[in-house]
């Protein structure tokens, strides 16, 4: 594996073709990777994925709450002063004991939910294999490393695998596997560099929220601009024998050419009638919508976008911060989906959330701590909406899923959440199992997230 991981796929292939590596020495996995690449069929359609990362660990068990029965009683006993009242009853295709109540500050999602463009995924989190409370206590199965630690769990969600020495994000891996990574426009971030989009051959283009970025010295008059640019190009050559310095040089050089190309494209973007609010997330999604509006002018048939909203680490003042965050999220989602409808891209673009972890059912007075299982959102015309896929967890402190302090064991692994998304994006089931090394420990395609 080292050989394969240590080099780019292209370099690896060329090595094989030149006879530099003995085919006999390859593992079956490598052979499969090799054949997949050689056999990859050209894509005929266009699709995009938009990942919304909720930084800090969203208390998403308070986003979907039980509304009646024993589940409600357990919930109220567990949550005490952080209980959500006035939840909006959702009518779900699947029936759940205790019902499904949506946080009242997310009211503007109900029409999307009812129209079938929005679904939730319930009781999901990082797992290596199915885990019971006894397994957890007896250490009978492997447990994800550094549970409850922000950056580690963020990375685990974004990598789609446990920490390995040369790690890559599953977003980037999908692009590379589909051979869609060569154009920088295929991999766009509104929230800086992140593990999900970092691969061997691709890393995200960080788009400015304003879209067009002027490059000051190259915006003057000729022949000065050409002269200045020629000097820049000389300085930014990567021949210093110093890999770190060269990394800087190639970054800047690439940034300049990417920004110039993007500017040319964005100047042709149509004006949208959909209005976006001026909250941080809406503004990021507005820029995504703008990029999507010119996607037909790029060579990309697959695009991935990354946006993020922070502040979910609600150790305190949860009663004021959580409604504001949920409201922002709901507003931004509904604005974005209406922009997609306007662009007639609603069936080609799927938007989904990830977050570090769920939070504890116990409170620390006015907030919650780092937990484990949680709920996620998935939105788009292709999505099997109006439902909660997975489970509505019984929120009971000391219950059969509580590993301590109201941290619930996920009943679905996040790789079971990712697998249908990757399949929708165009990967074969075999590819998906390779993409997510632990997916084979589960029934990877059990969650019917998409319309068939």
């Amino acid at each position, binding site marked *: 594996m080292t050989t394969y991981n240590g*080099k780019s796929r292209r370099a690896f292939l060329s090595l094989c073709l030149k006879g530099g590596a003995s085919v006999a020495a390859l593992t079956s996995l490598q052979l499969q990777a090799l054949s997949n690449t050689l056999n990859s069929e050209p894509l005929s359609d266009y699709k995009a994925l938009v990942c919304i990362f909720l930084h800090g660990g969203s208390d998403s068990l308070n986003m979907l709450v039980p509304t009646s029965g024993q589940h409600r009683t357990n919930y109220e006993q*567990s949550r005490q002063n952080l209980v959500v009242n006035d939840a909006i009853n959702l009518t779900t295709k699947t029936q759940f004991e205790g019902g499904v109540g949506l946080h009242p500050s997310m009211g503007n999602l109900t029409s999307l939910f009812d129209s079938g463009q929005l679904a939730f995924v319930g009781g999901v989190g990082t797992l290596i294999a199915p885990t019971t409370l006894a397994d957890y206590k007896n250490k009978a199965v492997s447990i994800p490393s550094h549970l409850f630690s922000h950056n580690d769990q963020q990375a685990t969600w974004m990598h789609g695998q446990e920490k390995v020495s040369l790690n890559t994000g599953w977003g980037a891996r999908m692009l590379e596997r589909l051979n869609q990574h060569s154009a920088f426009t295929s991999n766009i971030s509104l929230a800086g560099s992140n593990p999900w989009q970092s691969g*061997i051959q691709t890393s995200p283009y960080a788009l400015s929220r304003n879209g067009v970025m002027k490059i000051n010295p190259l915006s003057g008059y000729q022949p000065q601009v050409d002269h200045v640019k020629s000097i820049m190009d000389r*300085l930014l050559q990567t021949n210093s024998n110093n*890999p*770190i*310095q060269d990394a800087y040089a190639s970054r800047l050089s690439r940034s300049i050419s990417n920004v110039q190309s993007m500017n040319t494209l964005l100047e042709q973007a149509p004006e949208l009638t959909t209005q976006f609010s001026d909250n941080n997330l809406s503004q990021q999604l507005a820029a995504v919508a703008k990029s999507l509006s010119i996607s037909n002018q790029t060579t990309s048939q697959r695009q991935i976008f990354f946006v993020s909203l922070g502040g979910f680490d609600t150790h305190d003042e949860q009663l004021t911060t959580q409604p504001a965050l949920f409201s922002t999220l709901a507003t931004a989602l509904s604005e974005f989906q209406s922009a997609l409808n306007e662009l007639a891209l609603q069936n080609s673009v799927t938007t989904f959330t990830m977050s570090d972890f769920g939070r504890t059912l116990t409170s620390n007075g006015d907030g919650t701590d780092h937990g484990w299982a949680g709920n996620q959102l998935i939105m788009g015309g292709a999505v099997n909406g109006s439902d909660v896929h997975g489970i509505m967890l019984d929120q009971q402190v000391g219950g059969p899923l509580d590993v301590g302090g109201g941290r619930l064991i996920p009943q679905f692994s996040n790789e079971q959440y990712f697998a249908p998304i990757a399949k929708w994006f165009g990967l074969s089931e075999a590819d998906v199992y390779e993409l997510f090394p632990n997916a084979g420990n589960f029934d990877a395609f059990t969650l019917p997230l998409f319309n068939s």
Partner: protein
Amino acid sequence: MKLLALLMVFTFLLSACGGGSDTNNSNVTNEDNNTSSPSPPADTNTDNQTGDDAQTPDAGNNEDENPDAGAVGTAPIVDVRAPGSIVRKGTTIVIESAITGGDEQLTYLWEQIAGPTAVIENHQSPSLTVTLPETHSSTQDDFVFALTVTNREGLSTYTETTIESINAMTQKQAATLLHQGTLGPTHAEIQAATGKSEEEWINAQFASETTYHMPFLENYPNKEQPNHINRIDAWWKASLSAPDQLRQRVAFALSQIFVVSDANSALRGEPEGMTNYYDMLLKNAFGNFRTLLESVTLSPVMGVYLSHLGNEKANLDKNIRPDENYAREVMQLFTIGLDELNLDGTVKLDDNGNTIPTYSQLEIGGFAKVFTGWTFAYSARWNRPSKNYTLPMHPFEDYHSNLEKHLLNGEVIPADTGAEASMKLALDNLFMHPNVAPFISKQLIQRLVKSNPTPAYVERVATIFNDNGQGDRGDLTAVVKAILLDEEARKYSVVLEHTGKIKEPILTKLHFWRTLNAASQANRYYTWNLSTTFGQGPLLSPSVFNFFRPDHRPSELLDSNLVAPELQIATDSNMISTTNSHYSDLVWRMAERKSTLNPNTIYMYGEAHISLLENAGLEALLDHYDVVYFAGIMSDETRSALTDLDSYFVNRTPADRISQLLYMISLSPEFNYQN
């Protein structure tokens, strides 16, 4: 004679090891005794002659042990005078000798018997001229020179003198050190350090009075209280002008380990508290790590940021448990990290090759209990906190958990231990953990010197962290000194491929501002949007995980073992906006290019550069830039690119020319790499 000389040299080398100040060792011997009894003179020297300024030949002693020699006459009495003041490497010195009594028909023979090879002249005369080698290591050189004076009777006096030469940094060496130890050195600072030793400069910085930022915190005009932007203004003012640059640089590094931020928190409304937090880092930058850790822990700003302020003991009826936020991050980020480390900073592995976690939920629960019961100082009641953001937090015992608390390494704080005592025990427990030294040392190396220190470098610094030589643990002065004086930082002999780091983008801006006397007539440095322009700013991290992680490996380096943390924020938009910001500073706001100045605008003043260009020409200006901005590593390719750039602007004003040159420097890879 040969045999005797060899034995004597051997002995003097041994004695020289223990010697401190200039030492002369004299011994008298007789040319005739070389065959009869070679050993007594050697004994004499070790027994009696080390460590003093002895000039009188101990003829009696010699006679005692070698009675045959005494019968022949009296050996010359020789006094050797080494230069009295500090001797610097690379200088030429004269070592003089004086003879008491008759000095006719004496023969002189000087030899160098220890130390790096020096060039000696007049070695057969009373005064030896020595040209000492240039600076070639970070430590002082010790030389031993021997003088043998022989009279006409063949009686000799052998005298040794030890010379210590301390470093005299060249301009380039000084520039390299100051790139690591300042917020971007000015030409004047480099000149002042040139000719000094590294240690002299560092010690002078340690002794320099602390420039606190609070005095620079001013209100926005017509406002009663300072605003967030005034905090940024204070940071610029202090950082630009402070003479204690090393302390400022170390505090900036610490602010990226003990992260608090008002980028997206309620702390945005507390500029005094935030500035006070920075001052606390400055105060402790050259203090002890344990004190720093306690100051950080009890800071109300940290208490608000990581929510242990107002954290209460458990109330099981209400399902309330102590907040685990600070408990977790004080371990993961401020002291020990997630995995057990070796002293050299590499991770320890168990028998199965797996990393070993430093703590589990048990310890997190324990530390969470420790940090209960603390709130703002001078709060009359727990539920009516004072909101004093500058004084350390005070405890309320009623809200502190009196249960037993599990710490690291199986240590347990017994039940019914109070808030203050629990806090001190818990911080001691963290402080004594073997991870602290490598964990903190490596990050400080990465902030000051290089992204990829060798394990051996980390171990050398971590060893000093654990014991500064006087038995003290956590002496940050010793740690900073060890980091900067290490061979891997000074690079005198070791040639490593990966010698440095990418400069932090906000520090490149600060460097230009310091060297170009950035100022507005209204004396205001209001800079909005630092985060979206540079991806960083003082106390502006997007989360407690800082702007970038110490183990960030950018995609360009995936097939290497190298990390480059600063490249985590080198996104397309940050890189373009950073270079655009440099362009507007260096080109659009170069004062000498303006006919009128707006009183609120920050201008660069290129006066010194302009006069250098006008009076000495382009090559001299580029030499100057090589020292100030490149610490002497400007390549021929970069120089020729800058020369060719200037050829286009050669008929413009000198202000235009330096503007374009400075801008091109600001984006050049060699400038952005701190060697």
